Every structure is written in structure tokens, then in C-alpha cells.
């Protein structure tokens, strides 16, 4: 009789020994063969679950001390103090058991527990629960708006998770996925040219959002809307935009086409390309790695990944470079004094011996890392602190504002910051982006060794060598041609009009070979449907240029890495009628990525393509036809990612009535 897969499974669960008919079935059935293989792997790995970390007595003691520190730092008032008291007390008792094990009958030596323990434990438990209830109430009040801003701090100890969880429960302002947090952002709306003829924003070379979106999709889940930052998706990919040929370190390119979701709307691409620096001419680097070794970093995709990534980076360094390592957890310490890049062995050894332990004291670590970088400052070289963390700065006496001002001060002295985000679960995307933004730096999310290779090796010069800083873009629209417009992405990079001329105003940096793309969706004046105003006549006094073919005028300001005065570049953009399918490969690809991101963000202006089942084919068609050179296969990966997201996007497969 023929054995079915179900029979086979039953046989498996009935007896480990396979009979002949079962053996025969496995040989024929690939599904069951796979199951057998998996079973073997499971059996092989299960015993390794035993290897879980049991803290040493010393570690437990340290934790108690740290917890006390945290509570002191938190200064949350007597309520938490009392809780800390109860918590620390119980931990101290535990330390008693473990530390003094060589001493006779430790437990019995404690207060008369053997006799009265029941009563005591109950009393302690009651007290603890009562305190917890009080704290809960207090937090509920804070988050209901009566607070003194605790929610806006970086969080200390229990506060970190409390803040996330509570704001979620109480409908607070942050989006939390698990315990992850993302700054909320709303899409840029259309602006009327009559009311706002000028748009100003800072460039952004971060790419973290794409890697993070990819992590979500690969895990079988669509990312939360606020985790999707359009500009970071678009700028993740290499483009074939030509590098500058003149004296400016940046080339400014523009292109006009149509929006696939709204063919009457035009899409204007503004692309900046920073000059290349070949590896041989790379200026000397003074790098200080600042590595989070707190307990939360011990997952395989955190510290081990960071270590592997840094080892790859170190291989690229030479005798002209220097590397220092600072770690932070319960405290912060220098693991490796700045060492020549040629001393590979020494550096590797220092990286390899990093281990996790303790909670996170981010601010002290940052201060120490900056101090080290400053001591070994290389004039005319790359001076950079490379921060690797899951972003959970949960212990530290410093509030968010203080931390940012620390970073900002150092950024002014020429020490820039690269933030490498890792991990998941309690990943603090908003914190990381803000840190890199304020620290004149860039921010990448490492979800795999492959991504680490991209950020630290393929784009090493871009990540490490800044060729222009405080890069701002200002676009003025021609009111005789444009009715309204919106910028796709860059929501948290918008600047006031006057900021463009203000050299004190901080903006984004560009590293060597970086390409930054911004897309404007533009509605022609003729297609504009706005009721006229009662009190104002929409008749501005026009200059001569308004009568030309110009659609808009792009201005760009940048400073050289050590400069203080900005340089202006400008370029008028002529109106065009090129449809998207005839546009350049770069334009088509950027548009595809933008459309993908807008869909994930639930953009309301996608007209017919709001329907996912119609949107995904367009995304795929645009991307597939514009793979270009794609030497590292990143564009191809995007196409695959879109395919996966399509399957996840329930509405994409829902039958249309």
C-alpha cells in the first residue's frame, strides 16, 4: 500500500526508527525528505540551547550596582526610588546566595527566612505591586499630557521600554513596532506656487531606512509607515549620474518627466553627484569606533555582526590611518588607544575580544570617543567617530537635548559621526537618525554582512570622506508654468526659506561619490484646480525669466569640509514633455523606488495606483527596465524585494470586485 505524507509523519511521531516503507517514501517524496533533514538539524542544534548565559556572581553584583545608578540617574522621584529599593533588595539577597556560596548555608544565614519567609515574601510582593501601580498611574498621567517631558527624553532604565509601551497603549505620538520606535512623519503635501514659490531643504545621504524596510519585508511583514523614509530608499542605490568636472566637488543634474501615478503631473529629478576619491588618494583617517557592548547587543545580528563589519573595515586601512576603540555599557572605557592602521594584528585582537555585558551608558561613551578623536585630530584628513549600537541609550544621566548639543559641538570642530544601527526589537531608529543628523554624519542600518560590506567597503570613501558639508537645495518655481508642487520625501529635512542663505544653519553632508536624488511632483498651472481668492488677485509681478521655457530654478549651497563660507551653484530647468518610459534609467529607477515607498507610506495622492494590485506591476516594470550597470546587484535586489512586498501587501492579492 502506498504511504502518504500524513502516514509518514504519523510514523515519525510514533517511532524514531524508520521502517522500510517509510524509507521508501522519503526517497520518493521531496517534502518528507526535507522534513527528515530539518528534523536532524533540529536535533543537532537543540542541545546547544543549553549554552545560555548564566551570569557569574560578579556580573550579578555589577547589575545590582548598575541598577542603583540608573535609578539615581532617573531621578523619577520617591516612587521609583522605593521600587528600586525593593528590586535592589531582592537582588542583593540573590547575590548573597551566589557570591558567598563558599560560606556555609548562605540562605539560612539571611534574615530568618526559613521560618518567616512566607510572610516576608508576601509583604515584599504586596509592596512591590503597590508601587508598580503607583508608577503606572504616574506614567499614565505623564503621557496624557500632564508630564514634564519625560517622554521626550532618551529614556533611562525602565523608562525606555515604559515610554515605548505606554505611549503605544495610551495612543501616544510614537509608532512602536515591538519595542522599536520611529519618529512620526506626515507626507509633504502639495504647495501652491502662488503662496509658496520657493522650497528649501537639506540633503540627506542616509540609507538606513531601506535596509530596515528590507528587514521587515524579509521577515514577512510590511514595515510600519514611519519606518519608511522615501529619500533614504531612493538614495540607497547607486546611480550612473556623472561626477563633477569643474572645481566644485558636486555636480548638479536635473531631468523632467511624468509621474506614472498621475500622467498630467510632471516629475522633476534633482540629482547631486559628489566627486570621486580613489582609494590611493584617500586622505588619512583618524577613526574612533564607539561600540555599544550592553546586554542588548549580544544577539548574533548585533555585536557579532558589528565585529565582523569592523574587521572588514580595518583590513582597508593603512599606516596613514589610526584606529581607536571605545566601548560603553554600564560604564565607558577605552579598549584600544589610537593605533596605526598598519598594526592590523593589534586592532583585530582588540575587536575580537569585545564582549557584551551591562546596560547602556551612551552619553559617557560618546564624550570619551570624541575626546579621543580630538586628541589625534588629523588636519585635512578624515576625523570620525563610528558609533555602532542598537540605539537604546537607556542608561545615562544625559537627556536627549544635552546629548545632541554634545554631538553638535564636536561636529563643529571637524569630528564627524557615522552611526551604524543594528538589531531589532528595541531598535531606536529615530534616535539614530537624529544623532547622525546633528553630528554632521551619515547613518546606515546593517541588517547583514552584505550590507556592512556595501556601507564600509564598496562605499568606504563615501562613508568616511566628506567632500562637502551643509549642502542645501532651494528650488524656485516659475508661476507662469507651475500651479503647485510637492517634494517626495525629505519630510524631516525641510528648511525655512531664509535658512538657505544662513551659513550658520546646519544641513546634510556628502561623502565622496555619493549621489543624492530629490524628486518633485509638479502640477502645471493649466491643470491647477484652486478657487480664486476673494481679497488677493493672483497676479504677481513677473520677471523676464518667467516668460521663458523655464519650469523651475535650482540653487545649491555647500561648504568645503573645513570651510565656513558657503558656495552657491545654480541651474535653471526647462520644461519638458518626456514621458516616464522614455526617461533615463536613473530617473525610471528612482521613480520606481519612490512609488514603492509612497505605497508603503500609504500616500493619498497616488490616484489610480493607490490600489496595490495596480501599483506593484508599475513599480516592477519601471525597475526591471532600468537595472543599468548595477555592479553589485543592488537594483536587482530591489526588484526581488518588491516581489516579496507585493505578496505581503494583502490588498495586492485581494480580488478586485
Amino acid at each position, binding site marked *: 500500500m502506498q504511504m502518504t505524507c500524513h502516514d509518514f*509523519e504519523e510514523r*515519525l*511521531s510514533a517511532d524514531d526508527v524508520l521502517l522500510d516503507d517509510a524509507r521508501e517514501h522519503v526517497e520518493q517524496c521531496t517534502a518528507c525528505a*526535507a*522534513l527528515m533533514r*530539518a*528534523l536532524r*538539524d*533540529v536535533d543537532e*542544534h*537543540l*542541545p*546547544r*540551547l*543549553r*549554552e*545560555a*548565559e548564566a*551570569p557569574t556572581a560578579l556580573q550579578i553584583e555589577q*547589575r545590582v550596582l548598575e541598577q542603583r545608578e540608573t535609578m539615581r540617574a532617573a531621578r523619577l522621584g520617591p516612587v521609583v526610588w522605593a521600587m528600586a529599593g525593593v528590586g535592589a533588595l531582592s*537582588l542583593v*539577597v*540573590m547575590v548573597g*546566595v*551566589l557570591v558567598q*556560596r*563558599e*560560606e*556555609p548555608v*548562605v*540562605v*539560612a544565614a539571611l534574615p530568618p*527566612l*526559613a521560618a518567616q*519567609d512566607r510572610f516576608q*515574601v508576601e509583604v515584599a510582593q504586596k509592596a512591590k505591586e503597590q508601587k*508598580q501601580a503607583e508608577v*503606572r498611574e504616574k*506614567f499614565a498621567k505623564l503621557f496624557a499630557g500632564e508630564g514634564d517631558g519625560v517622554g521626550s527624553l532618551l529614556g533611562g532604565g*525602565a523608562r525606555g*521600554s515604559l515610554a*515605548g*509601551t505606554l505611549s503605544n*497603549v495610551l495612543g501616544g505620538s510614537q509608532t512602536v513596532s*515591538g*519595542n522599536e520606535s520611529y519618529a512620526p512623519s506626515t507626507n509633504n503635501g502639495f504647495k501652491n506656487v502662488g503662496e509658496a514659490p520657493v522650497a528649501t531643504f537639506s540633503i540627506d545621504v542616509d540609507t538606513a531606512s531601506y535596509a530596515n524596510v528590507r528587514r521587515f519585508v524579509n521577515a514577512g511583514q510590511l514595515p510600519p509607515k514611519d519606518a519608511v523614509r522615501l529619500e533614504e530608499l531612493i538614495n540607497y542605490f547607486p546611480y550612473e549620474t556623472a561626477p563633477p568636472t569643474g572645481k566644485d566637488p558636486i555636480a548638479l543634474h536635473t531631468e523632467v518627466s511624468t509621474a506614472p501615478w498621475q500622467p498630467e503631473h510632471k516629475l522633476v529629478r534633482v540629482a547631486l553627484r559628489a566627486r570621486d576619491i580613489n582609494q590611493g588618494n584617500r586622505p588619512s583617517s583618524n577613526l574612533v569606533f564607539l561600540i555599544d557592548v550592553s546586554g542588548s547587543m*549580544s544577539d*548574533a*545580528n548585533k555585536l*557579532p*555582526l558589528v*565585529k*565582523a563589519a569592523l*574587521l572588514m573595515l580595518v583590513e582597508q586601512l593603512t599606516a596613514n590611518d589610526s584606529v581607536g576603540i571605545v566601548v560603553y555599557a554600564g560604564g565607558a572605557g577605552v579598549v584600544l588607544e589610537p593605533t596605526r592602521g598598519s598594526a592590523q594584528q593589534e586592532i583585530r585582537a582588540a575587536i*575580537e575580544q*569585545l*564582549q557584551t555585558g551591562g546596560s547602556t551608558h551612551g552619553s559617557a561613551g560618546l564624550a570619551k570617543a570624541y575626546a579621543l578623536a580630538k586628541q589625534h585630530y588629523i588636519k585635512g584628513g578624515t576625523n570620525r567617530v563610528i558609533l555602532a549600537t542598537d540605539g537604546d541609550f537607556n542608561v545615562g544621566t544625559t537627556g536627549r537635548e544635552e546629548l545632541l548639543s554634545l554631538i553638535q559641538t564636536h561636529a563643529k570642530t571637524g569630528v564627524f559621526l557615522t552611526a551604524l544601527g543594528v538589531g*531589532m*526589537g528595541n531598535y531606536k531608529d529615530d534616535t539614530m537618525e537624529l544623532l547622525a543628523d546633528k553630528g554632521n554624519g551619515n547613518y546606515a542600518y546593517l541588517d547583514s*554582512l552584505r550590507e556592512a560590506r556595501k556601507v564600509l567597503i564598496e562605499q568606504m570613501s563615501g562613508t568616511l570622506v566628506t567632500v562637502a558639508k551643509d549642502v542645501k537645495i532651494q528650488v524656485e518655481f516659475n508661476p507662469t508654468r507651475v500651479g503647485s508642487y510637492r517634494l517626495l520625501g525629505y519630510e524631516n529635512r525641510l528648511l525655512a526659506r531664509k535658512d538657505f542663505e544662513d551659513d550658520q544653519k546646519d544641513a546634510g553632508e556628502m561623502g565622496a561619490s555619493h549621489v543624492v536624488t530629490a524628486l518633485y511632483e509638479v502640477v502645471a498651472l493649466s491643470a491647477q484646480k484652486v478657487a480664486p481668492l476673494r481679497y488677493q488677485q493672483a497676479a504677481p509681478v513677473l520677471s523676464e525669466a518667467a516668460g521663458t521655457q523655464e519650469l523651475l530654478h535650482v540653487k545649491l549651497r555647500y561648504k568645503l569640509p573645513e570651510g565656513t563660507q558657503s558656495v552657491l551653484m545654480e541651474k535653471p530647468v526647462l520644461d519638458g514633455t518626456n514621458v516616464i518610459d522614455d526617461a533615463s534609467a536613473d530617473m525610471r529607477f528612482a521613480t520606481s523606488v519612490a512609488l514603492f515607498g509612497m505605497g508603503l507610506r500609504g500616500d493619498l495622492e497616488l490616484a489610480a495606483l493607490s490600489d496595490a494590485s495596480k501599483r506593484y506591476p508599475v513599480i516592477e516594470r519601471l525597475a526591471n527596465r532600468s537595472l543599468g550597470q548595477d555592479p553589485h546587484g543592488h537594483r536587482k535586489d530591489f526588484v526581488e524585494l518588491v516581489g516579496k512586498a507585493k505578496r505581503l501587501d494583502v490588498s495586492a492579492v485581494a480580488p478586485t470586485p
Partner: protein
Amino acid sequence: MVTSEHVLLQRHNDGDATAFGELVELYRRPVYAYLARVGVPVSARDDVAQDVFFKLHKAAPSYVPERQLRAFVFTVVANSARSYARKRRVWGRFFESVSVAQEPAVRLSDAVADAVANTEAQQMLQWLDSAVQKLSPAQRDVILLHAVAQLDHHEIAQALRIPLNTVKTHLRRARVELAKMLVRRRSQEEVL
């Protein structure tokens, strides 16, 4: 080793002052490993482990030497973990994020020179760790007592106070369930 382990509580009851300390040291690692696996987060593990050893100390006089010490210890561990989980369901909503699946499970002691190759094994282990969390509580208890606490079928039956055949059934179902999850994961990876 097994014999000395066997008599530890007996020695303690007979007034040997060092026996209980030895017992704590002996079981520290498997107890922590088990607690980690049933989803007690790092922040609470010290507390729960403490609770376990208190209970053991209290219950020591009732220990019958014929009983396996390991089964005896893990009876207490399993109960403590469960009562923690119950409490957590009540408080967890307000005080901690409820997801514990990403608790760092495995300590990396290996040299990181081969961190790259290592990462894969680590990921497998981490996956297994989270997969175990997805099993039904009954299956999870049994497979963890088997794999982590290294109890044999009889000891598990004693520790959980369930019939021997039920232990066997749960154990096999848990293994097949895990294997199926692994197959699903692999086929997903292939699609990707």
C-alpha cells in the same frame, strides 16, 4: 558526578553546611538556560532564579532521596517560571514589552576571526530559540526539560506530573513541529 549530585540535598539535610552552596553552583547554568528558553527576560531572570533557590531551600526537608535530584530541582524551576509568566501577563502590558522572543540567548565565546561563519550557526540557534517559543506551552516545557535540563522521559514525567506516554507524545510532536517550521523557513528563504 551523578552520585554526588544525587546526595547533595541529602547532605544538606544532614547538616552539611557547604552542600546547598554546591547545589546552587551546580544548577546555576542549567536553571538560567531553562529560564531563558521559556521566555523569562534577562531583567527578571535573577529574580526568578532566586525564587527557585529559595523554594528549593524551603522544600529541602521534604526531599526523598529516592527521587532524582534533577527532576526535583526542575519541578521547582518549571513551576517558578510558570508563575512568573502568569504574573507577567497581568503586569506585562504596562511594564515591559510583551515580546521576549529576541532575548539574547547564546553567549558568543568563539573567537570572532571566524565571525562570518559563526554568524550562520548563531542565527540558526537564535531561530531555534524563537521557534521554541512558538510551541504550545506543554510541548515547550517538555522539549526544554529534555534538551536544556537534560532530564530523561521518566524525570520529565515526574517533574511535570504527567504520564510517561504523554511526555513521549509531546516530545515527538514538538520535534516534528520544529522541523516543519524549519522547512517552512528554508522554503521561504529560497523564495527570497
